[in-house]
């Protein structure tokens, strides 16, 4: 028994060290290769920053358009996925019958198991079918990529919402029932706020996934040179695709360095999204318990 405890604690420490070492090595490597390239030129090339930001002059070689593209992609994706994912999770946790829970849950699991490249192919096939039927002028674009990304992150949102609602103590709903609150009131005013931090955790995961996914957007509208995103039905640039493209096509050490710079920036961007979400989480928690 003592032996087993020792082995277990050793394994625990080892896996912890492995995680720290892996994450640390990755970060150090990215910083070493990327930091020298991380300057204004990386973002805006030779275009004056303010003029670039307000789209008065195009940026040819910088990553500003890709950054704007990734952010718009993220916003549209979350606008599509968030209401759907959270409502589906709420329905599963609070309203569905046992049978519905089983088969809807099964569907969500299947959706969660779909590799992102397959989701990209689905998007491509979707637009092909649409072109042949109701939308002859349709093409791969920001909206199509967002729809596919939304489908990709939907299971994460549903699972997080459902799990954090189901983890709430049963007596909370019993209390609400005993006070004469309707089911909808209970969910809206008590259960959802109480499950908020957990749901937000799922949102962070989903946002991370949507920011970094390359396979889906590669097939559904991301291109190497599009300039700033021009609308829902236009092609767009995106950071992960830019990195992928640079890694595959770079012509010299300077371009490779810019690729590393972009990768480092993408890492910083998704980290700061996570930090923002955490701050929001704490603030929500405080406001709700006092409100």
């Amino acid at each position, binding site marked *: 028994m003592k032996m087993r405890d020792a082995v277990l604690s050793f394994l625990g420490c080892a896996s912890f060290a492995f995680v720290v070492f892996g994450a640390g090595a990755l970060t150090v490597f990215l910083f070493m290769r990327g930091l020298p390239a991380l300057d204004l030129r990386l973002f805006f090339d030779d275009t004056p920053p303010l003029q670039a930001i307000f789209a008065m002059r195009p940026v040819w070689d910088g990553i500003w358009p890709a950054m704007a593209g990734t952010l718009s992609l993220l916003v549209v994706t979350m606008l599509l996925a968030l209401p759907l994912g959270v409502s589906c999770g709420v329905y599963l946790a609070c309203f569905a019958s046992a049978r519905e829970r089983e088969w809807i849950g099964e569907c969500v699991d299947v959706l969660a198991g779909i590799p992102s490249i397959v989701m990209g192919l689905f998007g491509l096939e979707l637009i092909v079918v649409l072109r042949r039927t109701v939308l002859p002028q349709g093409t791969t674009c920001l909206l199509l990529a967002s729809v596919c990304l939304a489908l990709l992150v939907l299971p994460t949102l549903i699972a997080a919402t459902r799990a954090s609602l189901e983890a709430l103590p049963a*007596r*909370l*709903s*019993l*209390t*609400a*029932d*005993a*006070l*004469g*609150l*309707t089911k909808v*009131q209970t969910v809206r*005013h*008590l259960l959802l706020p*109480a499950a908020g931090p957990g749901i937000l955790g799922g949102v962070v995961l989903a946002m991370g996934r949507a920011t970094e996914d390359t396979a889906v957007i590669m097939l559904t509208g991301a291109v190497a040179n599009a300039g700033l995103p021009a609308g829902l039905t236009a092609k767009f640039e995106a950071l992960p695709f830019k990195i992928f493209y640079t890694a595959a096509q770079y012509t010299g050490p300077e371009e490779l360095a810019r690729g590393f710079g972009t990768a480092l920036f993408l890492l910083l961007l998704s980290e700061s999204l996570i930090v923002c979400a955490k701050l929001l989480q704490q603030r929500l928690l405080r406001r*709700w*318990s*006092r*409100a």
Partner: protein
Amino acid sequence: MSEMNKIPTDSICACTCGLRVSFGGREILHGIDASFPANRVSVILGRSGCGKSTLLRSLNRLNECFDGCRSEGDISVRISGTLVPVTGNGAPPLTELRRRVGMVFQSPNPLPVSIRRNITLPLELTLSLRRSQAEDLLEEALTLTGLWNEVKDRLDAPAQSLSGGQQQRLCLARALALKPDLLLLDEPTASLDRVAAQKVEEMICSLKEHVSIIMVSHSLQQAANLADYALVIVEGRTLCDFDRPGLKNALDDGSLVKIAF
């Protein structure tokens, strides 16, 4: 064993007839006939597991919130002066019933919000009051349970920061704020220390002019202190009932302990 006392219909706050309740096929109550006097404290006595809480919960239909519950028989409660059935024709909507038949549980269950919101949130939601209107009722409710002076300076603190006894009085205040006709208390002092329990007991005594109270209790001492009427249940059946002097006699000569515990 004494015959069941007959309470005149117009002074009944709740009654059951042939009430059978089962969970997952296992019958807990085997046909309970009982009536409880209005504006009095009625205490349901019995060993643990005999179905006291189930009987209490059937009065506000809270048993239905548990899986596999089946219930038959008639239950009526007095709402706004009229004795109405809790299900079927003439029954109030479920949420209305639960508001008018308030309940306090064995262990304090404040909502995970501030002290203030514990009182005002249910008011806003069930009575469709505006926030300012709900705030107006706040002080009254907290004063009624002797909590106002203790918490008036920290109404926005989380309710969980109160002591167990204060939390229980907050739950009582929350139920009372909804202006119930009948208050159900499920061993309200079981999880409290002696001093806190005594405070809650004093409050229960003082409340009976406002509202009819039916409570479950383990403690014979508590029943002796509080009960105007006592109903003894053994294994899901009513065994006997007592008025106040009757209960005192049965406790003094030990006959109640012999037959029921």
